[in-house]
């Protein structure tokens, strides 16, 4: 008994000593072993870090485009993502489920990815501008150039998002970046017109910053941006996107001015313009809009009406579409043609092309009654498509109709037809627009956004 008590003391002592010395009671303050810290990059980044952040912006700017093309393509009755294992791409998007979802697609459904993607690009571009602002390694001009680039990308993403959301508008901003701890509170929604003004203001801010941006950026660009790697050239891209925004705003004079300041060339390559790069490499993204012929998994097929409405001899049909060996059916809608716009998973995707600029120029000129100028621009595109010069009526309305028609084929599968039909009130003329189908005028606001709004009324 006595022996045991002594032993007890000894064992307990040894244990207590052992426990404290072997750090039995220690729990580490673990830092993330898998990823880099945000602070190190956003607070006074080095040149190397600025380069990594800019690569990040160039990569993230791609996100959302594929989803936009898939959704806008279906609603604009251009293409269908004919997924063999998920019919929501041709039930919900074509409006056959609209009754159950309050006249839209499922707000909790699968079509919200673009919303997050474009919003993330908007945020990341803004954070990039703020981060470079704090970089002591950069000159004032370099900071200005970086800001101009960031605002251009930011506005591009905002405009894409705004067009998808249409009448629902976009957030006029968010406050958290300037007041930490407020948990990412967004500001009020704009309407469509207000959204356009916001996009234009952002672009103008970028343009001004680029003007003060000296002759070189403090970082290099991916190969898709070849020809647009100086602040001056970046401003041409900025103005090209501004022309788009003015077009949606129907501010034809400003549109004409902006397109004139862009990289528009009536004699140049129709495909000239900055591009997104893709690959299957680690952490990269493949061009998901590329497809092999006659795929049965989830091919992008056409509404046959796109092909049958084309003028005979239009080379864009042969260049961009392919006849399928078997007719694909998407919820009963037959497609004999499919898309073949891209040559492979590493094929770049255009951000904005000269061909669009030419057609925007034509539209701006027609709208401002420069009918000859409009016709000349249209004919550049028609010639490029192997068609004879325009021979229709030389009236504003006829020329606008012709511009829209050329936009349909020149910009096929680039996500324009739905927005074009909407801005000229032509949604009612699209195929499959009566019960059980419905042509939407805007993508539904995601449920998470609606619920936030209800819980945090502004």
């Amino acid at each position, binding site marked *: 008994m006595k022996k*045991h008590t002594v032993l007890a003391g000894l064992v*307990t002592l040894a244990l207590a000593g052992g*426990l404290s010395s072997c750090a*039995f*009671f220690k*729990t*580490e*303050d*673990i830092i993330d072993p*898998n*990823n*880099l*810290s*945000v602070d190190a990059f956003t607070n006074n980044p080095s040149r190397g870090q600025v380069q990594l952040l800019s*690569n*990040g912006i*160039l*990569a993230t700017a791609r996100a959302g485009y594929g989803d936009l093309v898939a959704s806008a393509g279906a609603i604009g009755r251009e293409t269908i993502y*004919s997924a*063999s*294992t998920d*019919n929501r791409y041709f*039930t*919900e998007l074509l409006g*056959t*489920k609209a*009754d*159950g*979802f309050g006249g839209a697609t*499922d707000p*909790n459904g*699968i079509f919200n990815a673009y919303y997050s993607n474009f919003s*993330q690009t908007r*945020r*990341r571009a803004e954070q990039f501008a703020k981060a470079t602002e704090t970089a002591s390694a950069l000159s004032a001009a370099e900071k200005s150039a970086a800001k101009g680039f960031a605002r251009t990308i930011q506005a591009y993403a905002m405009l894409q998002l705004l067009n998808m959301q249409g009448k629902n508008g976009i957030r006029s901003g968010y406050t958290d970046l300037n007041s930490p701890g407020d*948990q*990412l509170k*967004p500001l009020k929604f704009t309407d469509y017109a207000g959204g356009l003004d916001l996009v234009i203001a952002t672009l103008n801010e970028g343009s001004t910053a680029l003007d003060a941006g000296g002759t070189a950026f403090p970082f290099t660009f991916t190969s898709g941006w070849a020809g647009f790697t100086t602040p001056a050239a970046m401003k041409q891209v900025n103005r090209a996107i501004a022309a788009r925004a003015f077009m949606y705003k129907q501010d034809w004079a400003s549109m004409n001015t902006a397109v004139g300041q862009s990289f528009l060339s009536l004699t140049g390559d129709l495909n000239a313009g900055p591009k997104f790069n*893709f*690959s*299957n*490499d*680690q*952490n*990269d*993204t493949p061009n998901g809009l590329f497809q*092999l*012929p006659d*795929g049965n*998994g989830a091919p992008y097929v056409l509404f046959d009406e796109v092909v049958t409405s084309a003028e005979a001899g239009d080379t864009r049909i042969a260049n961009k579409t392919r006849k399928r060996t*078997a*007719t*694909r059916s998407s919820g009963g809608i*037959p497609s004999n043609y499919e898309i073949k716009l891209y040559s*492979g998973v590493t094929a770049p995707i255009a951000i904005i092309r000269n061909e669009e600029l030419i057609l925007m120029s034509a539209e701006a000129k027609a709208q401002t009654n420069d009918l000859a100028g409009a016709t000349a621009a249209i004919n550049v595109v028609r010639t490029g498509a192997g068609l004879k010069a325009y021979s229709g009526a030389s009236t504003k309305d006829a020329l606008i109709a012709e511009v829209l028609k050329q936009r349909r084929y020149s910009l096929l599968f680039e996500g324009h037809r739905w927005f074009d039909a909407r801005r000229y009130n032509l949604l009612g003329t699209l195929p499959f627009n009566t*019960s*059980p189908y419905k042509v939407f005028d805007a993508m539904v606001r995601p449920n*998470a956004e609606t619920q*936030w709004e209800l*819980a945090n009324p502004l």
Partner: protein
Amino acid sequence: MNKKLLLMLCLFICTVGAVLAQNQTLRGKVSDANSTPIPGVSVIVRGTTQGATTDAEGNYQLAIPANARVGFSYIGFLSQEIAVGNQSTLNVTLLEDNRQLEEVVVTGLATSVKRSNAANAVTSIGAQQLTGVTRPQTVDGALNGKVPGVQITANSGAPGGGFSVKLRGISSVTQASEPLYIIDGVYIDNSQFATGAGTGSFNRATSQTAGTQDQASNRLADINPEDIENIEVLKGPSAAAIYGTRANAGVILITTKKGKSGRTTVSFGQDIGFAEANKFAGLAKSPWNLDKINNGVFLVSNADMLKLYTAAGGDNAPRYDYEREVYGNRALLRNTKLNVSGGTDRLRYYVNGSVLSEDGIQKNTGFKRNSLRANIDAKLSDFVDIAVGSNYINSSSSRSFSGNDNNGVSLGYNLAYLPPWLEQHVDANGNYPENPLTGQNLFQVVDKMRNTETTNRFIQSVTTNFRFINTTNHQLKLSLQGGIDYLLNESQAYAPPEMQYFSGGGAGLGYRGAVRNTTNRALNFNAQAFLVDNLQVNGFNFTTSVGTVRLSNNSTQSYIEGRGLKPGPVKNPNTADSRVTDTYLTSAQDVGVVGQEEINWRDRVIVTGGVRFDKSSLNGDNSKFYAFPKASAAVNVANFDFWTNKNTVSALKLRVAYGQTGRSASFGNTFTSLGNVAIDGRSGVVVPSILGNANAEPETASEIETGIDASFFNNRVTLEATYYDKKVLNFLYQYQLAPSTGASQINAYPVGDLQNKGIELSLTGQILKGANLGWTSTLNYWQNRTTVTRLSVPRFAVPSSGFGGFGTNQIIQGLSPTTWYGSPYAADGTPTAYDNSQPKFQLSSYNNITFLNNFTFSFLVHWSYKNYNSTLGQELMDEGGTTPDWLNKDNLYQADRVKASLGDGSAFNGVARIYGSPGVETRQFVQDASFVKLREISLYYNVPKVAFGKLFGNAVSAIKLGASGNNVFVASKYVGYDPEASNFGNRPIGTGVDLLSFPASRRVFFHLNVTF
């Protein structure tokens, strides 16, 4: 020496004295239902003090007076009393008593209490009930239907398991909310490791690079159920509080078998059997004619479908039952075990080796487990003892591809879209005909693609006790315990380059062939030290324990995927055109300090109070301690002197218990870190859209449990009734932000409170207890209701809880988080609430019947009532034209079709009810998955020794033969394969999403057991 002499003298006198008074000698053997002899059984002549105990082989000898009644009793078994009559030999089989009131249950990390004094309803499942009936593949499978208060769901029927286990409803909303499993004190890993089978290169269930829909098994599958002596289920915080921040989802304590002192027993067992699909969807039964060809909504136009149909031979084309060709294998099941156990009163050992090999109902699938366990218990002196348990496991599975799919690879999908007349059989040249509908031939998937995993694992436990004080009314011991669980899990998903879905005819991914090798390494370590003091004073018993616990784990999960493979058998990603890789590291440490006091007054009133303080590196503040208190009281009314009717009501206990547990944030949820991207050969970083919560605190669950336990007629009937109210406070979940901010969520955010209320009833009766006919029956009933009682964030749809309009789970204040929601939406965007994935109730009945001395018949029936799945099974089959009732016209949604100007609205079922058809809302896809399953059934025969005694000399002591079945019968109206399915794997919310997962199988065994 003197002592021994004295003892012998005493013994001699007693024996002689006893013999003198007797006129008859009774001999016999006592064994359990498995014919294993039970040593140490006390055999007592009623009304006297005469008795004996059985020896190591279960034999006893006893002198008895005429017309004696002899009682047999042993801890853990139901006592028996038998009138001897004029018999001179009496062999007795004692049935295990899983409601045994003298059994002990765990109440602390180093203490336990007699079950009759416990304040919680702790369910205890013994070996007989766990694996004595049949041979479920995994431990969680073996528990299914046996524990009131538990919802166990098989994620799919693929070999190698995959079960989600929920104790008393929803304890946590995050993915990591499976109960804590502890084997002999070792905190084991029950991860469901990603294999990549659901990623882009394979079935593309998800476009993410890390798999959330891989249909993987959980690592409890490594544990050999036959090594288990006992499982205790601490269902809620009131019982599990002492486990602190690891115990929010409950604790499952597993004790493995130990050697018994006595003669060495060698036992050999061989099970052989077969498995076959329980149910087919009946795809080949769907009639095809021109009506279907011309009216179906297929993936090719009706005209092209007609061309295919005509080319195949039209109405006269041969019809193939592809479903049976894929899932119709009669799989061979083999299980061999050899164990040696025995020991002395100082050293006991149990060594068990087992080899399990089970094929699957689909060619090239199966599950194998080789396990070796050695348990050694040594009593070094009266002062110190030590117990060591070692387990090595090598397990492997091959599960093929099932569940969600976007490449045409998953066989459920492929079959649903495949008309029975379309020729898909491989031709004489080894070519697989292309599938013009989904782009992938199913037999090519079966034959050429692989989804395999192999695990090598060590589980090691050490327990040692130092008894410093050991007197009659005062004991003090130091109890030390340590455990290590190390596992290496290697999986491979493989698709050779010739797979059709890589080509233009299929999905077309831009490369041909892919192999992903995944390596998951996990190390779990735990250690604890406790001082336990036991003091008896004036009828009071004080048990005081103080101690500390440390848990740590770290893991590495990494993969290399090669894309673009060269033809040939080599599967090394090095030979691929390009590679993607990922490595993810985790680590965590928890430290707990515990104090507990138990006061027992004459087994009449027992009160317990305790508290655990926990800190964890997973919390925002790694050094802050959080307190988890507990308190309980039990009153044994029948033990008071005033209780006179003990023969009728032998025990009556009123109990109430309260306790708190917690759960820290999942690893990584406190970090906000940059994301890695690449473009054009450059790497880049992006600010994240998912933010960490650097201030994350543990979520907590507090529970009050109250109940009545009673037993009647000398424990012949026992009743356990429990009500609980479990609140989960500040449950951690993603705070879903307005996506317009560019940030989608804040992780590990305290988003609200949940409440679970439930009832658990368990009634056991020895209905018959004759020597020749015994019947013990247990009836369990349980139900649980969950409500979101507070929500501090906007209501939200739980990610990965379903597919939009097919039904999702949403977190909405005042409603159940497991309700299915969907269309139609009200004008303000409020979705319609449908039924719940939690059953209204579950009921199970376990029966054990012994007859003709040597036969034992057992069965377990399990009923789950009104649990609903969000299923796409019928939808996919309707789209493919393969539903058996496709051509019926049941006027489904006719009014809506008229409204939508589709003629008179008449339509075939297969068109009228598919997604997108007029009037079809989420109601269509939320389907009743109620079932009644005959989970287990068996008949065993103990061959009488006279039948084989001469055959093997005296070497063989027992032979047992039997036949059994596992899930042999399922009654359910469910459309598809099995009502138990979960596409997204183990998750508290979002179980029951079914996309034609791997069919469940019926398993039938024949058993041979020989004991030497």
